[in-house]
């Protein structure tokens, strides 16, 4: 592959509410076994991108723990590797990353030292599979300066939290609005870009000189009329998880057979950090309907239309419906959960009742657990 990868995983969003209190969005657990960033990393690895930089800033402990070894995604070769770049204080710079373009700017040396002619930029908060070789082929065929991966979203969804684009017949982006008040098109940017490495360095340097720090607003949108910015449309599954509702919905999508088949059973696979958990255990008295259950869990109660992540203990007579229970949660006996997201490593006391009546309820109890 003739590209290096950069994953922007530094941001936070108020839309995640309490869920981002203890982790970066890119480290959000997804579909029972994965973390959000696995999808970008696996797509890059499966596209034979060998060198990937992850730019982190906000609350990165959990993400760093997940990225503890590059071998999970098949990086960590003599040629290439997985690099994690948090902001650092240097002789020239003592700022945090002030925006996505600034994050790249502060790590321009990484790009300067590469020899690959192209860069794939992706974000860590989307769930998808993508062959970046195809995007690159398109990019070269269109003689584009920047290629933006786009997707049509059905009319009934609110897309004003995305970048909304309009393309001409050739695929060139003629209109690009970031988080518009009212969307004028149903095509959105997926936050995945292909760009020539030298071009990127030049654009980022120029923006930095002008004190501009955002890649979309200050680079893409400003340059779209003077540079050839093209859209590459995908119609495969793509979902952004950066709000509580979309996080919930994206997870629930995995209860659909076609989504499971696409991500779990079709080649290539999504990789993740390996936890050596035993198989899930279903004890007498349990009843599980239309749910995903991950390794290391022990189920004693009733579970319906829900996702049970790794190492969850569900006590006796529990009722769990339409809920997401994240990693390493202990649910005492008789707990009732409906429309809830239970934060990881939590302990929910026995006989408690949680119902998300208007939308999804985030359950965080932070009770202490006694472990031997």
């Amino acid at each position, binding site marked *: 592959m003739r590209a290096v990868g950069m994953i922007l995983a530094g941001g936070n969003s108020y839309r995640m509410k309490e869920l981002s209190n203890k982790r970066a969005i890119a480290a959000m657990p997804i579909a029972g076994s994965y973390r959000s960033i696995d999808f970008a990393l696996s797509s890059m690895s499966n596209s034979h991108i060998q060198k990937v930089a992850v730019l982190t800033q906000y609350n990165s402990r959990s993400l760093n723990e997940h990225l503890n070894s590059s071998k999970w995604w098949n990086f960590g070769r003599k040629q290439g590797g997985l690099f994690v770049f948090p902001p650092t204080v240097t002789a020239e710079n003592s700022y945090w990353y002030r925006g996505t373009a600034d994050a790249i700017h502060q790590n321009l040396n990484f790009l300067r030292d590469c020899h690959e002619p192209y860069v794939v930029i992706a974000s860590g908060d989307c769930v998808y599979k993508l062959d970046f070789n195809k995007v690159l082929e398109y990019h070269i065929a269109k003689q584009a300066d920047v290629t933006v991966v786009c997707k049509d979203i059905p009319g009934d969804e609110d897309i004003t939290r995305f970048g909304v684009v309009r393309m001409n017949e050739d695929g060139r982006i003629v209109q690009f609005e970031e988080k518009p008040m009212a969307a004028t098109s149903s095509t959105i940017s997926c936050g995945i870009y292909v760009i020539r490495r030298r071009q990127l360095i030049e654009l980022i340097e120029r923006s930095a000189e002008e004190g501009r720090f955002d890649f979309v607003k200050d680079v893409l949108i400003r340059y779209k009329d003077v540079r050839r910015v093209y859209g590459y449309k995908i119609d495969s599954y793509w979902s952004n998880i950066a709000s509580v509702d979309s996080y919930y919905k994206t997870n629930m999508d995995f209860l659909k057979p076609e989504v499971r088949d696409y991500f779990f059973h079709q080649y290539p696979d999504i990789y993740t950090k390996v936890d050596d958990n035993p198989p899930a255990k279903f004890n007498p008295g349990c*009843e599980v309907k239309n749910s995903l259950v991950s390794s290391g869990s022990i189920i004693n109660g009733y579970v319906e239309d829900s996702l049970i992540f790794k190492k969850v203990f569900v006590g006796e007579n529990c009722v769990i419906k339409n809920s997401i229970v994240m990693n390493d949660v202990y649910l005492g006996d008789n707990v009732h959960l409906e429309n809830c997201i239970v934060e990881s490593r939590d302990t929910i006391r026995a006989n408690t009742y949680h119902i998300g009546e208007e939308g999804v309820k985030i359950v965080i109890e932070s009770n202490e657990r006694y472990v031997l």
Partner: protein
Amino acid sequence: MIKKEIIAMLLAGGQGSRLGVLTAQVAKPAVSFGGRYRIIDFPLSNCINSGIDTVGVLTQYQPLRLNSHIGIGIPWDLDRNVGGVTVLPPYEKVGKSEWYTGTANAIYQNMAFMEHYNPDYVLILSGDHIYKMDYEVMLDYHKSHNADVSIAVMPVPQEEANRFGVVVTDDQGRICEFQEKPEHPKSNLASMGIYIFTWKALKEALEALSEQEGCDFGKHVIPYCFDKGERIVAYEFNGYWKDVGTLGSYWESNMELIDIIPEFNLYEEFWKIYTTNDMIPPQYISSGARVYRSLISDGSEIFGTVENSIIGPGVRIGEGAVVRDSIVMQGTVIRRNAVLDRTIVAENSEIGEGAVLGTGEEVPNRARPDIYSYGLAVVGENTSVPAGVKIGKNTAVTGATLPEDYPDGVLASGETLDKAGVFA
């Protein structure tokens, strides 16, 4: 110069013929256990958890799956710059080439491997037991008793002691007598086939016995050391230990994992058992499924009923299918409305729609009543069972079987159908 205090030699070359079709195409240590594990994961995980980072795995019989499972030892953290795991198959030598003719002979042929690490102690393990054991504690015992050889033993019920090799110890733990499957056992301490040798004693014994045909630890090396008057001590182990040598004990020890609080607990954070991770996605349990008292591994999709069973990774159980008291291994597909009772289905097999396995009366197997008993129906790997057929108890099936292989659509209890041609 490289120096390792202790290295482990893991004997994984045996067929384990009493497991019948399960080991027809794969060595016993590579047979699945407990859903996602293979038997060899237990001793390998014990090694790394005990701080032993140099392991030689001696392979001979059907090593393909074993080799690809072990690889360079990544799942067990045994990919090391110095040491780690090394697979040791028999090899050709100038003048005299031979297979591994016995357990001790296999070790003897790898003298150079052991000498390379310059060990003080050598731990001899076998790849067919299910247990968690801290070998470091055993090593401490070996050292504090100034022993030349330590043998791990465990107390068994006195009335069963006649099935084992029994050791009689003095009050210091030193072994004063061996009894092999004695009629009147003088003790209830059974040897577990786990030995720690002081390197000098092992080397001396192996060289002295180098001409011994089929040189074996239990039959030759230990008696030799005993006759020479070396200090042989018994290290008593009190914990779960299971020899899964027969289909019955294999099935039983799998089933024991389902108990609410199993005697052998895989869910403890401490002393994890490691294995390869070729299946990452979670498992899906559909609306019509019923899962009860079972272990189900990653990536499986369950649409039918699963009761008292162990399901491996990536298994698909169709609508209306019923799997009861059974073991289904990795990658197998059970089609709609199939019914399995006390059945073991090995890897990557397919059970056709509406097939019924493990039904009918219990009749002893005609060909090998010693292997296929316990009322189990056993389906080998890469086997397909056509739709609608009935298979009885104490049966074995291998290969791509067709409807015409089943007269009247039935394989009666006690019969064997070997399409893969793997029976000796």
